[in-house]
Every structure is written in C-alpha cells, then in structure tokens.
C-alpha cells in the first residue's frame, strides 16, 4: 500500500492541474525519442523520426503523447489504487505492445524534465521528490503484469 502525505497529494493534484496535456504529452514523448533514440523501436509506424526536428514536428507523436498523458491522469484521480487502475494497461504493454518496462522509467524521467522546465523555480526539490514518487508508483504498476 502506498502511503501519500497531504503534501504529496496536493503537489500531484496541483502539478497536473497546471499542465497543458497536449503540449506536455507531445513534448515529453518527443523528448524521450530524441534523448533515448532506441525507444524509437516501438514507433516504426509513426512516420518520419529521422532527426530531432522531424520528431518534434511529427503529429502522430504529438497525438500519442497526449494519449499517454491522459493515461497518467487516471493515476492522478486514483492515487490510492494505482496498481489496480493500471492492471489492464500493464497487460497491454506486455502482451500486445511488448514494451520493455525499463522504458517506462525513461519516459517518466523526460516528463520530470519537461515539467521542471515549465514550472521553473516552483519545481523545488520537495516537489520533485513528490512527483518522482508518484511516477515511480505508476511505473511499477505498469510493469506489474509482465510475466
């Protein structure tokens, strides 16, 4: 059972309330594909990923980034039950998408950086710790159903 402090709950709710899901989602996925190019292996059908500019301008990537961020929203709204919330998605990523769960950490690190760039000073060490704890619970839940 994950125990959340009041500060952590408030911080997560606050951060997500300030995010433009479309902008942040697209930027995060694009960043992941640029910083960790091997993650492009899962996006063979997404068109032009030839260089950073192409990735950042790719509409399919932008759209998929938004999908991912909306998926994160489910955890924000169910912080006390993240494992159950993602059981189906975990199965999907394992059985259908065959995504190595290590990739979840890479994407979550990129999200942290994108949010830091957006919030600047407001993204203090304590806020970062809360955000990273949240993402690590999400990452763990997404990997739970792999076998």
């Amino acid at each position, binding site marked *: 059972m994950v125990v959340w402090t009041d500060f952590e709950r408030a911080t997560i709710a606050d951060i997500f309330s300030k995010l433009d899901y479309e902008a942040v989602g697209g930027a995060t996925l694009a960043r992941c594909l640029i910083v960790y190019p091997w993650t492009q292996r899962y996006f063979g059908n997404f068109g032009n990923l030839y260089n950073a500019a192409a*990735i950042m301008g790719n509409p399919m990537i932008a759209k998929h980034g938004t999908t991912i961020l909306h998926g994160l929203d489910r955890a924000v709204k169910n912080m006390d039950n993240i494992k159950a919330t993602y059981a189906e998605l975990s199965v999907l990523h394992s059985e259908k998408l065959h995504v190595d769960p290590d990739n979840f950490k890479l994407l979550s690190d990129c999200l942290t950086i994108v949010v830091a760039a957006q919030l*600047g000073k407001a993204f203090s*060490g304590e806020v*970062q*710790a809360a955000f990273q704890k949240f993402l690590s619970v999400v990452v763990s839940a997404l990997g739970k159903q792999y076998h």
Partner: protein
Amino acid sequence: MLSAREKELIAEIWDRLTPVAEDIGAEALLRMFATEPGSKTYFSHLDISPSSAHLRSHGKKIVLAIAEGAKDISQLAVTLGPLQTLHAYQLRIDPTNFKFFSHCMLVTLAAHMRNDFTPVAHAAMDKYLSAFAAVLAEKFR
C-alpha cells in the same frame, strides 16, 4: 558518442553557468538529497541544509569540475585523473549516486534554462554527464 556540435553546445552551456556555479551546484545537491535520501549518508560530516556554506561551496566544486571537463571532452580521463583517485580510494561513493546526481543536475538545468533546455541540449548533456560519471568511476576497481 558526442558529435562536434554537441560538444560545442555542452561547452557553451557550462561556460554560461560558471558564474552561477554555486547556485546550480547547491540546487542539484539539494534535489538529490530530497529525492534520494540515501545520498545524504555521504555528507554526515557537513551541514547540507539549504543555503548552508558547506552545501554551496561543495556544489560549486562539483559544477566547476564538470565545467572544466566540458572544455575538452576528449581529455576527460586526463582532466579527471586526480578526482578519479579521490573518488575511488577516499570518497568511495557508490556509483549509482552519480546517476542520481546527473539526473538532478538535468532537472536543475531544465528549471533554470526552461525552454532553452531543448531536447537536443538535454540529449547532449545527458551523454556528457554519463561519460563524466563513467570516467570518474574508472579507478573504482
């Protein structure tokens, strides 16, 4: 593998940040202490509270070493020789902490540079900090 353009970009960024080395270094350390409490165990002999003199001077040392290395990345093993020895035989910091610190440095850069911390800059910087950490750990065993 760093391209010539990436090396330029990295050197440029650290050159710009050298005047605020104390701020950047202290912030990266504080972020690491907040997110990885185990890292604090290496600092039991210092005052690492926010804005403490120890924290700021230590952060400055680290950032200046990183900035110095950035001036000629191909010479990292030479530039870091003494620091390699220090970390291997005296400090003996578990190398996973280098990863934690690098990540917190990237977050610090993002918080300061905002949109200027582009994906390309991020990729270059991540590669540089990984290389730096690897060289630093070379004498460990």
